[in-house]
């Protein structure tokens, strides 16, 4: 008899809540039991630690940038170092943090549980993806330590061909290549799992919306990332062998690189935001204790965003030299993406209407998301308009816009999701008061950092400059103060989570009153999640789910 066969749920002493004596965290122990695990939950947690560390690293670079820009000239970094710092900030945040954050960390943990299965379809491939991610991290750190990469995270040619930091470019592009495969395999695994392993009763339209969002994300990961793979491979060959495909001296075309790059990297923007939207759909419904409004429209809009996302890459290149007709078509297509995004926002607001809102930490983050994402989305429209983009291209307006979407959107949703599922992952409740304080500080700090940047951008402050005109100094200082506030907010959030690990009270099975399957299995879940595939109904039917003071959580009353 293996250890897995011990009772899964037994009454815990004292508070009367259900707490499993045996779960995936203590199923086996030792370093190798984690390093070689095939359990999606452990892989998810390892990703979580990994992406959070990368985020801390990237965040440190961000603070270095902001501190450097305190004065309009003679910042504390040399211009050369400044270039390297913003490059690494961008590259680490995009490739090592945002892209794997929600799908690989939260998605890995939640997807099989939400589907009522024991694991993802290909557990070994899943572990392989994680190690590819680690390899990519090592290559990035190599690029950082040899000479420092200074091309910007986009590796635009001819910078990337001509820069003296050849070794760093090679290490980083190879890192991107490897990370790309990590992302492809994760996406492939999720698509196959969702397609073939849904439990009895879970039709496509009875899937939790987080799964719809993950599914749409996975489609993009599988279809877009290979193109990035070949692009960076050709770029490496360009550096190593001088193949000339992107080099005008050898009759190549640098704009081709931009097309190839953005063919991936624009859909990648939706790899970053779609899973965040999935989290918000779950959070809105659960914390308003009300069925999600417009389920089908949210599900369809995820797929629509994934598909439209493939057709708009040209809007990154309005000033790069394209035919006029092409730019007009790309501009028009860009506006179409705003429709499914707006559908989602309206549906979330519709969910809150007449709901019983529990204003707790995850909900605060979710509300912050809606506010920030809406600003981020709406400021995308002027950038999609050709005439305005000529003025705003490569200014701080763009910087503020994508930070509102990427950070105000994805990061805030990630934190919301993390707080929401933290009791499930660790079996511990965090301190609600301090959690809410962290959400408030993050929200204030974020706006203080990036709202001034919209103003800076419209006044003509170009991005990536190490020095600037004196007239911009006040706004820059405001932004720097905001970034420090934001840093403090994130630190508080981290401390709240870490504190809960040691001093948090034991989490009940269903602390928030959710109706999806992860709230059926214990917190933390047992090794195999479910002994047999559960039969499922509507994931947003909250009838009969009531608070039980004895357990400290919600239970299903039939």
């Amino acid at each position, binding site marked *: 008899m293996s250890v897995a066969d011990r009772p899964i749920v037994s009454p815990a002493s004292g508070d009367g809540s259900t707490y499993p004596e045996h779960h995936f965290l203590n199923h086996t122990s030792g370093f190798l039991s984690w390093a070689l695990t095939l359990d999606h939950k452990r892989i998810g947690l390892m990703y979580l630690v990994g992406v959070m560390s990368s985020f801390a690293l990237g965040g440190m670079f961000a603070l270095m940038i902001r501190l450097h820009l305190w004065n309009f000239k003679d910042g504390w970094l040399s211009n050369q170092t400044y270039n390297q710092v913003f490059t690494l900030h961008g590259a680490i945040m995009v490739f090592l943090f945002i892209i794997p954050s929600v799908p690989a960390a939260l998605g890995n943990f939640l997807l099989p549980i939400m589907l009522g299965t024991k694991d993802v379809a290909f557990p070994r491939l899943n572990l392989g993806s994680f190690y590819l991610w680690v390899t990519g991290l090592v290559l990035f750190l190599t690029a950082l330590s040899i000479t420092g990469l200074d091309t910007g995270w986009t590796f635009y040619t001819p910078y990337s061909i001509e820069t003296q930091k050849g070794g760093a470019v090679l290490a980083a592009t190879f890192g991107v290549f490897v990370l790309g495969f990590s992302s492809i395999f994760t996406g492939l695994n999720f698509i196959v799992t969702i397609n*073939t392993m849904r439990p009895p009763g879970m039709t496509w339209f009875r899937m939790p919306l987080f799964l719809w969002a993950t599914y749409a994300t996975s489609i993009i990961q599988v279809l877009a990332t290979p193109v990035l793979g070949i692009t960076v491979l050709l770029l490496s060959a360009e550096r190593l062998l001088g193949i000339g*495909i992107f080099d005008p001296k050898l009759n190549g075309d640098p704009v081709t690189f931009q097309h190839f790059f953005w063919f991936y990297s624009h859909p990648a923007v939706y790899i970053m935001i779609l899973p965040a939207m999935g989290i918000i759909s779950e959070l809105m419904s659960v914390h308003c204790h009300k069925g999600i409004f417009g389920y089908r429209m949210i599900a369809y809009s995820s797929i629509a965003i994934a598909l439209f996302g493939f057709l708009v890459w040209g809007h990154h290149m309005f000033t790069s030299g394209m035919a006029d007709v092409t730019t007009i078509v790309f501009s028009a297509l860009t506006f179409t993406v705003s429709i499914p995004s707006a559908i989602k926002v309206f549906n979330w607001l519709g969910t809150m209407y007449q709901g019983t809102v529990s204003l707790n930490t995850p909900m605060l983050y979710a509300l912050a998301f809606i506010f920030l994402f809406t600003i981020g989305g709406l400021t995308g429209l002027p950038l999609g308009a050709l005439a305005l983009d000529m003025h705003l291209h490569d200014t701080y307006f763009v910087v503020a816009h994508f930070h509102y979407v990427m950070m105000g959107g994805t990061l805030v949703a990630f934190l919301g999701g993390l707080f929401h599922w933290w009791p499930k992952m660790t079996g511990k409740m965090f301190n609600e008061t301090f959690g809410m304080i962290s959400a408030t500080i993050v929200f204030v700090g974020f706006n203080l950092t990036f709202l001034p940047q919209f103003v800076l951008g419209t006044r003509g402050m170009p991005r990536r400059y190490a020095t600037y005109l004196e007239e911009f100094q006040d706004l820059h200082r405001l932004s720097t103060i905001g970034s420090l506030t934001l840093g403090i907010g994130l630190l508080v959030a981290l401390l709240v989570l870490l504190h809960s690990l040691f001093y948090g009270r034991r989490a009940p099975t269903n602390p928030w009153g959710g109706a999806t399957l992860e709230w059926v299995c214990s917190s933390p879940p047992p090794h195999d999640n479910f002994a047999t595939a559960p039969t499922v109904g509507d994931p947003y039917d909250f009838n009969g789910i009531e608070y039980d003071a004895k357990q400290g959580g919600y239970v299903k009353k039939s």
Partner: protein
Amino acid sequence: MTAIQETAHESEHAQDHHHDHPAWLAHHFDDAEQQFDAGKLGMWLFLVTEVLFFSGMFCAYSLYRNRDPEVFEFCSRFLNEKLGAINTGVLLFSSLTMAWAVRAAQLKQHKLLVGMLGATLGCAAMFLGVKAVEYSHKWELGLLPGKFYVSQIPGAAHGEHGYLGSLCIVPLILTIIAGVYYIYSLATMSKFHQKVAGPILVAGACFFGGVQLGRILEAEETTHHAAEHAAHEHAPGTSHDHSQDHSAGELLPEKEGGEVIALGHKSIEDVKVMAEELKTPDASVNQKSMAGLFFSIYYCMTGIHAVHIIGGMLVITWLIVKAAREEFHDQYFGPVDNVGLYWHLVDFIWIYLFPLLYLIT
């Protein structure tokens, strides 16, 4: 939970795992069908990513060919379509053997399965052998990617650089290891090891067979060019002084002069065009900033294709090991089927590469 309950739980569990879950069925799948479907969908998705991976290069190909068609026409002449055609045939045949292997796995014809997988592996090795000859020959001529491209002068001397030898080192070592392994398997009388070592050794031999075949065909081509060159020189109306170009190497016209008659009229004309283009000033494509790009694309596409062939050989070897253990049967043949799909795709990509690169003139 009481002891009785626990025992009940245990027996239920035991039944669950030992009855419904044979060794070949992973614990998280309900049944063989679900496992097969998952594997198959996964492979198809992987193939989609492969197609997109190559699509970047096909895109670059169409962009640059559309922009400079003359570069592509000029450079394509340097590719030996005979070798390309032979490789196409070899790969098509390997697809047949692979498909046959899938059938053998389903019908539990274990011996035939090992044989068919071995044949596929051999074809792959032969493909690489021919490719090695093609690559090394081009390197010797200076037909290199991008900035390394050397402008072509008709009849110029090209020494042996031993590129082919270097390309053969790793296959040689692997073949020797396979040989030692085969001897070991004979010595220990292990049927399993013989079934594994045999096909690998044959594949090693096939590689060198491919090299030999490639060399014969490449030598024919060279002879043929040189011979035509001589004919061309003596033809009326052309008065280029090529004599200084014929100083050394394999291209001595006098040596091959006798064979001119044996060659068809058409091919003599082909070479005429080529020599003129190489000499005329408007053949400006013969420089690294033009022709180099074609060879960049050529090496990237065929090189990455070759990497996929090598990857395919590794997984086929893994299948041979499993097949030698007689693991496959009508309920469990997913791996053979899926590797087969992959192999057909690799074949399929070559079917596109061959005409797009070799046959455009």
